C-alpha cells in the first residue's frame, strides 16, 4: 500500500530534486560540449585560412608606426604567401628576422633575382628614414623568401587593437575570457 500522504509528498520532492540535480549536470555537460565545439570550429577556420593563403600567419596586427600614414598600430592585415608569387619592388611584405618572433611589416625597395629563382631583397618602412639593414641579423644584408610570412593583400583599420590591449594588459585578457566563458556556459538553448 502507499505510505502516508506526507510520505508521498517527501518522496516526490526527493525525486524532483534528484531530477533537477541530474538535469543541471547534463545541462552543464551539454554547455561544455557546445563551448568545445565552438573553440574547435574556430581553430579549424584558422587552420583552413593558413592552408588557403599559404601563410603561417594569415592575419597579423600592425605593431609599430613605421608604415604610417598607411598603417597604424592596431590595424589588421590580411596576408597571402603563394609560392609562385614573385617578390617585387613596392610590395608590402611581412617578414620575421631569423631568430626573432616579431613580424615586421615593411615595403620592398630592392629586388635582385637570379635566373634560378633565388631572390634577395631589401625592405624599408615608409615612415623610416633608412632601410631595414639595421633590423636584420648581424651581418645579414638581404632578406630571402624563407623570411617572408606573407604579402599584405587587404587591411582593416583599428580592429587589431583588441589583441594589443590584451597583450599589454593581461588582466583585461583574463576578464574577457572569463566573460566569454561565462556567457557560453550559462547560455540556455531555447
Amino acid at each position, binding site marked *: 500500500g502507499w505510505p502516508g500522504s506526507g510520505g508521498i509528498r517527501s518522496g516526490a520532492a526527493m525525486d524532483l530534486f534528484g531530477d533537477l540535480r541530474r538535469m543541471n549536470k547534463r545541462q552543464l555537460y551539454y554547455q561544455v560540449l557546445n563551448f568545445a565545439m565552438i573553440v574547435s570550429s574556430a581553430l579549424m577556420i584558422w587552420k583552413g585560412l593558413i592552408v588557403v593563403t599559404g601563410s603561417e600567419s594569415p592575419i597579423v596586427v600592425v605593431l609599430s608606426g613605421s608604415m604610417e*600614414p598607411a598603417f597604424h598600430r592596431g590595424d589588421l592585415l590580411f596576408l597571402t604567401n603563394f609560392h609562385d608569387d614573385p617578390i617585387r619592388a*613596392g610590395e608590402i611584405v611581412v617578414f620575421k628576422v631569423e631568430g626573432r618572433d616579431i613580424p615586421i611589416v615593411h*615595403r620592398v625597395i630592392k629586388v635582385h*633575382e637570379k635566373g634560378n629563382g633565388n631572390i634577395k631583397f631589401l625592405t624599408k618602412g615608409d615612415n623610416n628614414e633608412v632601410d631595414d639593414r639595421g633590423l636584420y641579423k648581424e651581418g645579414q644584408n638581404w632578406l630571402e623568401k624563407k623570411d617572408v610570412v606573407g604579402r*599584405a593583400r587587404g587591411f582593416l583599420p583599428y580592429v587589431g587593437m583588441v589583441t594589443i590591449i590584451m597583450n599589454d594588459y593581461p588582466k583585461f585578457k583574463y576578464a574577457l575570457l572569463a566573460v566569454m566563458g561565462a556567457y557560453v556556459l550559462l547560455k540556455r538553448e531555447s
Partner: protein
Amino acid sequence: LRKNVEDFTGPRERSDLGFVTFDITADILNGKNGGMFSIFDWNVKQLFLYLSAEYSTKNNALNQVVLWDKIMLRGDNPRLSLKDMKSKYFFFDDGNGLKGNRNITLTLSWNVVPNAGILPLVTGSGHVSVPFPDTYETTKSY
C-alpha cells in the same frame, strides 16, 4: 606619364652606383568606364607612389630598385609635375651590372591604400628606357 633622364655612373666598394635625374609629369586619373574620374574615391586613403628601375645583369636575371617615392594623400593635388629630381635612394647594383647597361626601364607605380579593404599595386602605363654609359665618372659632380 612622361619621364626624361640623364645619368652617369660611379663605382663604390666594388658595386656600381648609378645616378639618375628625372622629370615626372603624371596625372593620377582613372580612365575606366569611358570617363575620367579620380582614383581617389571614397575608399582611398592615400596612394604610395614610387619610381622603380628594372633591369637585367650578368649576375641577376631581374633587378628592381626603387629610386624615389612619395605619399599622396586624398585631397592632395593629383597632378605631379616634378622636374630635375634626383633619386631619393642610392641606386646601387648588386655587382657591376650598371656599366654599359643599355636597358634600364623606369616605371612609375603606386600602391592604393584604402580606408579598408584590398591593397592593389598598380603600374603606370608609361615607362622610359634609360641607357647607362660604358665608363665610370670619376668627378663628383652629383
